[in-house]
Protein backbone atom coordinates (compact mmCIF):
# COMPACT_ATOMS: atom_id res chain seq x y z
CA UNK A 1 0.00 0.00 0.00
CA UNK A 2 1.16 3.49 -0.81
CA UNK A 3 0.29 6.90 0.56
CA UNK A 4 0.66 9.98 -1.60
CA UNK A 5 1.27 13.22 0.26
CA UNK A 6 0.96 16.59 -1.47
CA UNK A 7 2.43 19.57 0.38
CA UNK A 8 1.44 23.00 -0.92
CA UNK A 9 1.99 26.55 0.27
CA UNK A 10 -1.03 28.11 1.93
CA UNK A 11 -2.83 30.62 -0.22
CA UNK A 12 -1.44 34.07 0.38
CA UNK A 13 2.07 32.82 1.11
CA UNK A 14 4.48 34.24 -1.46
CA UNK A 15 6.01 31.54 -3.68
CA UNK A 16 9.06 33.03 -5.40
CA UNK A 17 9.94 29.70 -7.04
CA UNK A 18 6.48 29.34 -8.55
CA UNK A 19 6.71 32.94 -9.78
CA UNK A 20 10.08 32.30 -11.43
CA UNK A 21 8.69 29.23 -13.22
CA UNK A 22 5.68 31.28 -14.30
CA UNK A 23 7.94 33.98 -15.76
CA UNK A 24 9.93 31.35 -17.64
CA UNK A 25 6.75 29.81 -19.00
CA UNK A 26 5.57 33.20 -20.22
CA UNK A 27 8.89 34.02 -21.85
CA UNK A 28 8.75 30.66 -23.67
CA UNK A 29 5.40 31.66 -25.10
CA UNK A 30 3.04 29.51 -23.01
CA UNK A 31 -0.31 31.28 -23.09
CA UNK A 32 -3.21 31.40 -20.66
CA UNK A 33 -1.24 30.51 -17.55
CA UNK A 34 -2.44 32.75 -14.77
CA UNK A 35 -0.24 31.52 -11.94
CA UNK A 36 2.03 28.65 -10.90
CA UNK A 37 2.48 27.46 -7.31
CA UNK A 38 5.24 24.99 -6.50
CA UNK A 39 4.72 22.20 -3.98
CA UNK A 40 6.16 18.87 -2.88
CA UNK A 41 5.01 15.34 -3.56
CA UNK A 42 5.92 12.30 -1.45
CA UNK A 43 5.31 8.57 -2.01
CA UNK A 44 5.17 6.69 1.27
CA UNK A 45 5.44 2.91 0.97
CA UNK A 46 3.50 1.36 3.83
CA UNK A 47 3.50 -2.11 5.27
CA UNK A 48 0.78 -4.19 3.56
CA UNK A 49 -0.36 -5.47 6.97
CA UNK A 50 -1.83 -2.03 7.77
CA UNK A 51 -5.48 -1.55 6.94
CA UNK A 52 -6.47 1.52 4.97
CA UNK A 53 -7.58 3.56 7.97
CA UNK A 54 -4.37 2.86 9.89
CA UNK A 55 -2.27 3.64 6.82
CA UNK A 56 -4.11 6.93 6.34
CA UNK A 57 -3.66 7.82 10.01
CA UNK A 58 0.06 7.06 9.96
CA UNK A 59 0.70 8.97 6.72
CA UNK A 60 -1.32 11.92 8.02
CA UNK A 61 0.73 12.03 11.21
CA UNK A 62 3.93 11.93 9.15
CA UNK A 63 2.67 14.75 6.94
CA UNK A 64 1.69 16.96 9.86
CA UNK A 65 4.78 16.34 11.99
CA UNK A 66 7.55 16.27 9.39
CA UNK A 67 6.61 16.74 5.75
CA UNK A 68 4.72 20.02 6.07
CA UNK A 69 5.42 23.10 8.15
CA UNK A 70 1.97 24.18 9.35
CA UNK A 71 3.03 27.83 9.54
CA UNK A 72 3.17 28.12 5.74
CA UNK A 73 2.04 24.81 4.24
CA UNK A 74 -1.05 22.62 3.84
CA UNK A 75 -1.03 18.92 3.02
CA UNK A 76 -3.32 16.35 1.47
CA UNK A 77 -3.01 12.57 1.90
CA UNK A 78 -4.27 9.91 -0.51
CA UNK A 79 -4.06 6.14 -0.08
CA UNK A 80 -3.38 4.06 -3.19
CA UNK A 81 -3.76 0.27 -3.06
Amino acid at each position, binding site marked *: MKALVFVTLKSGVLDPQGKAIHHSAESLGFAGINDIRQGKYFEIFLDPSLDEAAAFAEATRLASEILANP*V*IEDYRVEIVK
Partner: protein
Amino acid sequence: MKFGVVVFPGSNCDHDAYHVISKHVGQPVDFIWHQETELAGFDAVLIPGGFSYGDYLRAGALARFSPVMRSVREFAAAGKFVFGICNGFQILCEAGLLPGVLMRNRGLHFICKHVDLRVENSNTPFTNLVDSDRVLSIPVAHAEGNYTCDDATFNELEENGQIVFRYCTPDGEVTDGANPNGARSNIAGICNRERNVLGMMPHPERACEELLGSNDGRDIFRSLANTIGKMSI
Protein backbone atom coordinates in the same frame (compact mmCIF):
# COMPACT_ATOMS: atom_id res chain seq x y z
CA MET B 1 30.75 29.96 32.53
CA LYS B 2 30.78 27.59 29.63
CA PHE B 3 29.54 27.82 26.05
CA GLY B 4 28.64 24.93 23.76
CA VAL B 5 28.53 24.85 19.97
CA VAL B 6 26.25 22.17 18.51
CA VAL B 7 27.64 20.34 15.47
CA PHE B 8 25.20 18.75 13.01
CA PRO B 9 26.22 16.90 9.87
CA GLY B 10 26.53 19.86 7.49
CA SER B 11 27.23 22.59 10.05
CA ASN B 12 29.96 24.84 8.68
CA CYS B 13 30.12 27.86 10.97
CA ASP B 14 30.78 25.81 14.10
CA HIS B 15 34.52 26.55 14.16
CA ASP B 16 33.92 30.26 13.60
CA ALA B 17 31.58 30.36 16.59
CA TYR B 18 34.05 28.38 18.69
CA HIS B 19 36.87 30.74 17.69
CA VAL B 20 34.89 33.84 18.63
CA ILE B 21 33.90 32.52 22.04
CA SER B 22 37.39 31.37 22.94
CA LYS B 23 39.36 34.26 21.42
CA HIS B 24 37.08 37.31 21.51
CA VAL B 25 34.85 36.52 24.47
CA GLY B 26 37.60 34.69 26.35
CA GLN B 27 35.39 31.97 27.79
CA PRO B 28 35.57 28.16 27.80
CA VAL B 29 33.73 26.51 24.91
CA ASP B 30 33.16 22.94 23.73
CA PHE B 31 31.70 21.36 20.63
CA ILE B 32 28.54 19.28 21.18
CA TRP B 33 28.00 16.51 18.60
CA HIS B 34 24.34 16.27 17.58
CA GLN B 35 24.07 12.70 18.93
CA GLU B 36 24.87 13.90 22.45
CA THR B 37 22.08 14.51 24.92
CA GLU B 38 23.92 15.79 28.00
CA LEU B 39 24.03 19.57 28.32
CA ALA B 40 24.77 19.79 32.04
CA GLY B 41 27.50 22.31 32.76
CA PHE B 42 26.72 24.56 29.83
CA ASP B 43 25.30 28.06 30.34
CA ALA B 44 24.67 28.82 26.68
CA VAL B 45 24.36 26.71 23.56
CA LEU B 46 25.03 28.09 20.08
CA ILE B 47 23.33 26.51 17.07
CA PRO B 48 25.69 27.50 14.25
CA GLY B 49 25.13 28.17 10.58
CA GLY B 50 25.60 25.73 7.75
CA PHE B 51 23.49 23.26 5.85
CA SER B 52 22.44 20.70 8.43
CA TYR B 53 21.25 17.53 6.68
CA GLY B 54 21.84 19.26 3.34
CA ASP B 55 18.78 21.48 3.94
CA TYR B 56 16.75 18.46 2.77
CA LEU B 57 12.95 18.82 2.97
CA ARG B 58 13.15 22.38 4.39
CA ALA B 59 16.10 24.25 5.88
CA GLY B 60 16.40 23.13 9.50
CA ALA B 61 13.51 20.67 9.28
CA LEU B 62 15.50 17.47 9.84
CA ALA B 63 18.02 18.79 12.37
CA ARG B 64 15.18 19.30 14.79
CA PHE B 65 14.89 15.51 15.14
CA SER B 66 18.54 15.09 16.19
CA PRO B 67 18.94 13.69 19.72
CA VAL B 68 20.61 16.87 20.95
CA MET B 69 17.56 18.98 20.08
CA ARG B 70 15.40 17.30 22.71
CA SER B 71 18.02 18.35 25.27
CA VAL B 72 18.24 21.85 23.77
CA ARG B 73 14.47 22.18 24.22
CA GLU B 74 14.75 21.21 27.90
CA PHE B 75 17.79 23.48 28.26
CA ALA B 76 15.78 26.43 26.93
CA ALA B 77 12.77 25.56 29.07
CA ALA B 78 15.07 25.71 32.10
CA GLY B 79 15.91 29.30 31.19
CA LYS B 80 19.41 28.64 29.83
CA PHE B 81 20.53 30.55 26.73
CA VAL B 82 20.16 29.26 23.19
CA PHE B 83 21.47 31.29 20.25
CA GLY B 84 20.77 30.17 16.68
CA ILE B 85 22.60 31.81 13.79
CA CYS B 86 21.42 31.46 10.17
CA ASN B 87 20.75 27.72 9.77
CA GLY B 88 20.59 27.69 13.59
CA PHE B 89 17.74 30.24 13.43
CA GLN B 90 15.97 28.05 10.85
CA ILE B 91 16.38 25.02 13.13
CA LEU B 92 15.00 26.89 16.17
CA CYS B 93 11.93 27.92 14.16
CA GLU B 94 11.36 24.39 12.88
CA ALA B 95 11.79 23.07 16.41
CA GLY B 96 9.15 25.49 17.69
CA LEU B 97 11.58 27.28 20.03
CA LEU B 98 10.97 30.46 18.05
CA PRO B 99 7.77 31.37 16.17
CA GLY B 100 7.48 31.67 12.39
CA VAL B 101 9.54 30.23 9.57
CA LEU B 102 12.37 31.23 7.22
CA MET B 103 11.25 30.92 3.62
CA ARG B 104 13.07 31.15 0.32
CA ASN B 105 14.43 34.67 -0.37
CA ARG B 106 12.02 36.72 -2.44
CA GLY B 107 14.62 37.13 -5.20
CA LEU B 108 15.43 33.38 -5.14
CA HIS B 109 19.18 34.05 -5.01
CA PHE B 110 21.59 32.97 -2.34
CA ILE B 111 22.68 36.30 -0.84
CA CYS B 112 26.17 36.71 0.59
CA LYS B 113 27.09 40.28 1.58
CA HIS B 114 27.45 42.70 4.46
CA VAL B 115 24.13 44.20 5.56
CA ASP B 116 23.20 46.84 8.11
CA LEU B 117 21.12 45.88 11.12
CA ARG B 118 19.33 48.15 13.52
CA VAL B 119 19.24 47.00 17.11
CA GLU B 120 15.56 47.16 17.97
CA ASN B 121 15.83 45.99 21.55
CA SER B 122 18.97 46.38 23.64
CA ASN B 123 17.18 45.09 26.72
CA THR B 124 17.84 41.41 26.02
CA PRO B 125 20.52 39.05 27.34
CA PHE B 126 22.09 39.10 23.87
CA THR B 127 22.19 42.86 23.25
CA ASN B 128 22.67 44.54 26.63
CA LEU B 129 26.09 45.96 25.64
CA VAL B 130 24.69 47.43 22.42
CA ASP B 131 22.81 50.71 22.30
CA SER B 132 19.28 50.61 20.94
CA ASP B 133 19.05 51.99 17.40
CA ARG B 134 22.77 51.36 16.87
CA VAL B 135 23.46 50.11 13.33
CA LEU B 136 25.63 47.00 13.10
CA SER B 137 27.41 45.88 9.94
CA ILE B 138 27.20 42.09 9.79
CA PRO B 139 27.25 39.71 6.81
CA VAL B 140 24.37 37.52 5.67
CA ALA B 141 24.83 34.29 3.69
CA HIS B 142 21.59 32.48 3.00
CA ALA B 143 18.97 31.43 0.46
CA GLU B 144 16.17 30.97 3.00
CA GLY B 145 16.11 34.06 5.18
CA ASN B 146 12.71 35.43 4.33
CA TYR B 147 11.11 35.56 7.78
CA THR B 148 7.40 34.84 7.65
CA CYS B 149 4.72 34.56 10.31
CA ASP B 150 1.00 35.15 10.63
CA ASP B 151 -0.47 38.46 11.80
CA ALA B 152 -1.21 37.28 15.33
CA THR B 153 2.39 36.12 15.80
CA PHE B 154 3.74 39.35 14.33
CA ASN B 155 1.66 41.49 16.66
CA GLU B 156 2.84 39.44 19.60
CA LEU B 157 6.49 39.86 18.54
CA GLU B 158 6.02 43.63 18.31
CA GLU B 159 4.13 44.00 21.57
CA ASN B 160 6.62 41.93 23.55
CA GLY B 161 9.71 43.56 22.08
CA GLN B 162 10.82 40.24 20.59
CA ILE B 163 12.05 41.78 17.34
CA VAL B 164 15.73 42.26 18.15
CA PHE B 165 17.27 43.16 14.76
CA ARG B 166 15.88 44.70 11.57
CA TYR B 167 17.57 45.16 8.20
CA CYS B 168 18.13 48.87 7.62
CA THR B 169 20.05 51.45 5.60
CA PRO B 170 23.50 52.56 6.86
CA ASP B 171 21.66 55.48 8.52
CA GLY B 172 19.39 53.15 10.42
CA GLU B 173 16.27 53.58 8.32
CA VAL B 174 14.15 50.47 7.92
CA THR B 175 13.22 50.50 4.23
CA ASP B 176 12.18 47.89 1.71
CA GLY B 177 15.34 48.66 -0.27
CA ALA B 178 17.43 47.62 2.74
CA ASN B 179 15.57 44.33 3.03
CA PRO B 180 17.77 41.68 1.36
CA ASN B 181 15.36 38.75 1.39
CA GLY B 182 11.77 39.94 1.73
CA ALA B 183 11.52 39.20 5.46
CA ARG B 184 8.32 40.46 7.06
CA SER B 185 8.84 43.95 8.47
CA ASN B 186 12.61 43.64 7.73
CA ILE B 187 13.01 41.17 10.58
CA ALA B 188 16.58 39.86 10.83
CA GLY B 189 16.45 38.40 14.34
CA ILE B 190 13.92 37.62 17.06
CA CYS B 191 13.91 36.24 20.57
CA ASN B 192 11.31 34.23 22.43
CA ARG B 193 8.96 35.83 24.93
CA GLU B 194 11.21 34.77 27.84
CA ARG B 195 14.23 36.37 26.05
CA ASN B 196 16.56 33.41 26.56
CA VAL B 197 16.37 32.10 22.98
CA LEU B 198 17.62 34.27 20.10
CA GLY B 199 17.69 33.52 16.39
CA MET B 200 19.17 35.72 13.67
CA MET B 201 19.96 35.28 9.99
CA PRO B 202 23.10 37.47 9.80
CA HIS B 203 26.40 35.99 11.00
CA PRO B 204 27.85 37.98 13.93
CA GLU B 205 30.61 35.36 14.30
CA ARG B 206 31.90 36.47 10.90
CA ALA B 207 32.09 40.08 12.07
CA CYS B 208 34.40 39.91 15.07
CA GLU B 209 37.68 41.06 13.59
CA GLU B 210 38.52 44.38 11.91
CA LEU B 211 40.48 42.42 9.33
CA LEU B 212 37.23 40.78 8.18
CA GLY B 213 35.55 44.14 7.59
CA SER B 214 33.68 44.60 10.86
CA ASN B 215 33.88 43.67 14.51
CA ASP B 216 30.30 44.70 15.33
CA GLY B 217 29.35 41.08 15.98
CA ARG B 218 31.55 40.81 19.05
CA ASP B 219 29.22 42.89 21.18
CA ILE B 220 26.43 40.34 20.77
CA PHE B 221 28.54 37.47 22.12
CA ARG B 222 30.00 39.72 24.80
CA SER B 223 26.51 40.80 25.86
CA LEU B 224 25.60 37.17 26.38
CA ALA B 225 28.77 36.54 28.40
CA ASN B 226 28.04 39.70 30.41
CA THR B 227 24.53 38.41 31.19
CA ILE B 228 25.77 34.99 32.28
CA GLY B 229 28.56 36.58 34.32
CA LYS B 230 26.10 38.75 36.24
CA MET B 231 23.81 35.78 36.90
CA SER B 232 26.57 33.69 38.46
CA ILE B 233 27.63 36.37 40.96
